[in-house]
């Protein structure tokens, strides 16, 4: 029944935005932490059950060994061993859950920062595109002024030549 746990974060399964430069990650996606405790309690109960000595006492021998202390001792040791396995498993299980949870934090930080870096790169591209357009306008102004000046210079040169032509006609 614990397999039906939902992610704690309510991450949408569909995403739509009109913002080209917004990040999309909503937060770390983690397992439901409430289930950590219930799962651990279950594991510990299981471990305690595994440590129950009665199931290792087996068939009692006859005679002086029947129900002897040695048999009880062996059963106890066996029970402790099995319980220890269960406890170790419970510990390992909790460690895994906690590491999964913190790994989700790191993964979120990595992915968000990666996306931010990419978005910054895109913003830079956008600004550069705008800047190139403005620089092109700047160059156009220079071209226009130079062209205008060139036309006027040519006219002034032509006027000088005309003066010479007129003088030639006069004399």
């Amino acid at each position, binding site marked *: 029944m614990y397999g039906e746990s939902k992610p704690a974060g309510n991450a949408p399964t569909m995403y739509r935005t009109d913002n080209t430069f917004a990040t999309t990650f909503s937060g770390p996606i983690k397992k439901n932490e409430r289930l950590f405790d219930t799962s651990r309690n279950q594991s510990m109960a299981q471990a305690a059950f595994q440590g129950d000595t009665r199931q290792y006492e087996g068939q009692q021998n006859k005679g002086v060994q029947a129900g002897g202390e040695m048999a009880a001792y062996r059963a106890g040791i066996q029970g*402790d061993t099995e319980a220890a396995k269960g*406890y170790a498993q419970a510990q390992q299980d909790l*460690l895994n859950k*906690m590491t999964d949870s913190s790994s989700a934090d790191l993964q979120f930080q990595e992915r968000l920062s990666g996306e931010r870096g990419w978005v910054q790169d895109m913003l830079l591209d956008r600004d550069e595109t705008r800047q190139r357009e403005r*620089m092109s306008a700047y160059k156009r102004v220079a071209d226009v002024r130079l062209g205008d000046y060139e036309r006027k210079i040519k006219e002034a040169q032509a006027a000088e030549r005309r003066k010479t032509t007129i003088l030639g006609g006069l004399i």
Partner: protein
Amino acid sequence: MGNINDQVTRGWSPYKGGKPKTPAPLGRGPKQGYENPRFPTIGQKDVKAPAGGYQSIISTAAPLDAGQTNRISDVQPAFKSLGSGSGDRSRTAFAQGVSDTSRNTLDKATDTYQTDYRKQAEKSRSEDVLAQRQNALDRYRQDVFKDLFDEDTRTRLSEGVKDMSQSFETVKRDEQAKRTAMILSFLGSMI
């Protein structure tokens, strides 16, 4: 031609003398990594860090605190005898032994995880900051390119204006000389 040309050519005047001297040799170009007074940097001199410096959201702190670590590994021994027989003591010691072993193993596993996590976080943070530095460097390149482009465009305009002013001056002097020659020739023919 208006004041704009004076501003553009900055006091330049047309050349009227004989054959000019050849220009001075260009000499060595600037060397990378060194300032050169002959070719001073005209734009931004270095990469600027963003306001507040490069920052990363990636934390390199240990992901599990001491309380969480204890919670993972803190398991009571499976058995604690209230008796005083040798079997009881032996069994208690055994239970304590497996518990301690398990705790040590978990502590080591936790420690390994913590160090692996922090190594990974440091690497990721470095990559995050490096990406930001790369963007700052790109921005610097773009700004410097803009400064170069501005200066090149301004120079192209002023040199073009000088070319044409010189060309006008040459034509004007040519035509004046022709007219003078024509008048002299005319006067000569009258003598």
